[in-house]
């Protein structure tokens, strides 16, 4: 991503404090990583089968991956992972392939057992070969992206990120191509409301969804192919984004890698806070999905912006910073590079607050300086957008200006119809012209923008960093899971035992095997 030459330290942050903040985040996060390494989930196991080539669904639309994992779990549990019993069955039975095995397992006619000794070694090796093919495919898609970016080029300046969401993948394609032609660099296909709570990934191309379109492998493929066509026409690589979140986070991450998606929403805590998904489930799923994203060269987008939709954007500014530091720690632990960390934040301060724009600049610049090499994702106002679309258009202009001044890397295009209707075609066009005007008029203004060392912006940034450090101290002492239960982030209280999908979490036995994790960890 191209950004102007940045003068380091516009805010004069104390490097010792910044180091301290990172260190605290690592210490707060480590116990959660240990938890992730000692558990598996039904979704991690299903994703592993998908990497091994198990796709498709039964006539009821239940994916074979679900059928097979459920059958294994019923008979022998998942403590050893799904691979050992599945490849043991494949090696010793008369099954054509994984799909055939899944179909027969669904009728409960396959006796599963966890192999031991030499049999375990052989089954694991067979699983490793199959899963390795999926990972090789992800590698291939990554190389393909690199080649296309070389051929067609990256956008100049920040990436302009625009959402389409019609519910119908074919309609989405029309809108996405129009948006790309209108100047969008990144197209996000927002998911159908409620998909995050489905414990399976729907199959095939879909034409019905609520406020969004289902994430399916076929929908991914169709949209990526359409955007490749448009990219070639425009001479600019148009990126595709979807959501690796919810109960199927690892599977969607796998499908994204296989279908060459470019960015994925993948926050460490979003599902816990805003979808009431069990915290342990989320952290286990998240680690595996991030390992896949790391391998696939996918940029993740974190969801700190969401905190500010439920908590006050001034009072809770430090929770965004603390969460960004935690997200960074978890991401790097899973193998993601700085250039893959689209840490999120948002322009959500009440416009009635005096100096709201200066405070926004302070928060945005703080993020920029804390994470100089991360492609930060800057989210437009939602909470204070009203039905007054004219005022909303002005707010979005200020949002774009703040993005330019503080060199945000990914600008989500704000819609004046936010909270009113799904955007009209013309609303998108107007929004793109808003951003284009600001970038053309003031895209280089960061060069001239040096907040006074003792001014409100610098003081406010220092204050937020200080509060974030205090919060991280507290989180480290009481534990991240307890902090989440106490409502630290977004004002949402979620207990470690509560939430959806808790029954899909399984503690690993000593003999747990997952060749996908082994392959991903050795890279």
């Amino acid at each position, binding site marked *: 991503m191209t950004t102007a030459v940045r003068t380091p330290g516009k805010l004069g942050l104390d490097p010792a404090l910044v180091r301290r903040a990172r260190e605290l985040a690592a210490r707060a996060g480590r116990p959660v990583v240990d938890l992730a390494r000692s558990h598996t989930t039904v979704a991690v196991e299903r994703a592993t089968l998908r990497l091994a080539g198990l796709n498709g669904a039964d006539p009821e639309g239940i994916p074979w991956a679900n059928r097979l994992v459920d059958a294994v779990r019923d008979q022998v549990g998942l403590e050893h992972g799904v691979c050992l019993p599945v490849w043991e069955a494949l090696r010793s039975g008369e099954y054509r392939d994984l799909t055939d095995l899944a179909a027969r397992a669904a009728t409960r006619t396959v006796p599963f057992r966890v192999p031991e000794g030499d049999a375990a070694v052989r089954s694991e090796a067979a699983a490793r070969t199959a899963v390795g093919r999926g990972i090789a495919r992800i590698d291939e898609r990554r190389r393909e992206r690199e080649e296309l970016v070389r051929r067609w080029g990256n956008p100049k300046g920040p990436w302009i990120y625009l959402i389409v969401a019609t519910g119908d993948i074919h309609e989405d394609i029309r809108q996405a191509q129009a948006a790309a032609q*209108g100047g969008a660099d990144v197209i996000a296909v927002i998911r159908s*409301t409620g998909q995050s*709570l489905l414990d399976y990934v729907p199959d095939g191309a879909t034409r019905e969804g*609520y406020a969004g379109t289902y994430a399916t492998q076929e929908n991914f493929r169709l949209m990526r192919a359409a955007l490749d066509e448009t990219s070639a026409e425009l001479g600019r690589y148009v990126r595709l984004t979807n959501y690796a979140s919810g109960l199927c986070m690892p599977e969607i991450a796998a499908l994204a890698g296989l279908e060459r998606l470019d960015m994925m929403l993948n926050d460490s805590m979003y599902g816990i806070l*805003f979808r009431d998904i069990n915290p342990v489930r989320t952290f286990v799923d998240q680690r595996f999905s991030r390992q896949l994203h790391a391998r696939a060269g996918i940029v993740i987008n974190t969801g700190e912006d969401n905190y500010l*939709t439920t908590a006050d954007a001034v009072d809770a500014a430090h929770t965004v910073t603390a969460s960004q530091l935690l997200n960074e720690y978890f991401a790097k632990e899973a193998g993601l590079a700085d250039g893959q960390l689209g840490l999120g934040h948002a322009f959500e301060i009440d416009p009635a607050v005096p100096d709201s724009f200066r405070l926004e600049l302070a928060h945005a610049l703080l993020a920029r300086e804390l994470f100089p090499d991360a492609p930060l994702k800057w989210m437009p106002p939602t909470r204070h957008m009203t*039905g007054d679309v004219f005022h909303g258009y002005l707010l979005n202009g200020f949002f774009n200006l703040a993005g330019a001044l503080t060199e945000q890397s990914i600008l989500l295009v704000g819609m004046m119809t936010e909270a009113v209707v*799904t955007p009209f075609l*013309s609303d998108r*066009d107007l929004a793109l012209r808003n951003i284009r005007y600001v970038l053309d008029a003031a895209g280089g203004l960061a060069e001239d923008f040096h907040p006074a060392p003792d001014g409100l912006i610098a003081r406010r940034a220092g204050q937020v960093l200080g509060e974030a450090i205090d919060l991280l101290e507290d989180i480290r002492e009481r534990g991240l899971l307890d902090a989440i239960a106490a409502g630290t982030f977004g004002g949402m209280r979620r207990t470690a035992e509560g939430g959806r999908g808790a029954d899909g979490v399984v503690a690993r036995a000593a003999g747990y095997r997952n060749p996908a994790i082994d392959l991903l960890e050795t890279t």
Partner: protein
Amino acid sequence: MITAPDLDLDLPTLPRTATTVRPYGDTTDDGMVQVSFTLPVPHGPLADGAALQLARKMGIDRPLLVHSKPIGRDFSFFVVYGPVVHEVDLDEIEVVEREYPLLTAKEANSAVSERLGRKLVVLGACIGTDAHTVGIDAILNIKGFAGEKGLEYYKELKVLNLGAQVSVPELVRRARVEGADAVLVSQVVTQRDAHLTNVKELAAELRAEFAEHERPLLVVGGPRFDPGTAAELGADRVFGRGTTPSDVASYLVHALTGAELTG
């Protein structure tokens, strides 16, 4: 640039009564409105002509096409100004007037303690798949909305906010367990009228679960709801855009304590 239309010439003449109004642009009764829309027609004279004709059909008598721009190859966007021929008679408008006095938090609290003799239990949630808790939070959270504190601030109200994406059966179950006097639901983001379906489902479930005299009051809110549709939805009250916590608290006190207080 927009030039001001010659408005003193042949304005449509319509019957006038004292309660009749027309839009106000910059002069009484000029009838001026602005509209914008997109047509799936490539930009050009045909598209412009189509836009003007649509504006006339919408009742804009002499439309001014002040802006016309292509969107991609297949669409054109227009901004139209002009005087609309219609007028409205205020006497014919039906609105849901607040039939109860607006109470302060203190008044609401004393009404509850005097007339109910116990705390009034309010259960709030975003139902269906909507994860946008902005609405219910504005009404319930102590922080409140529009300078008013939310219902959690009222010491005689016991408020339970279940948050986002609560299923209808779960909400009904909790209403039973908590002994809710009122169930408040908000829906913000909605597509294909899902907000209406969800509320109807909830209303039906509440009626199935509770006898009529013990059924909690169902109060619905959100920017997409029309306050006149309570009966159609099976709700006891529907609040639209701009509702504040004291509107809701005053209604609850009125409906649940039978208080005909003077505000």
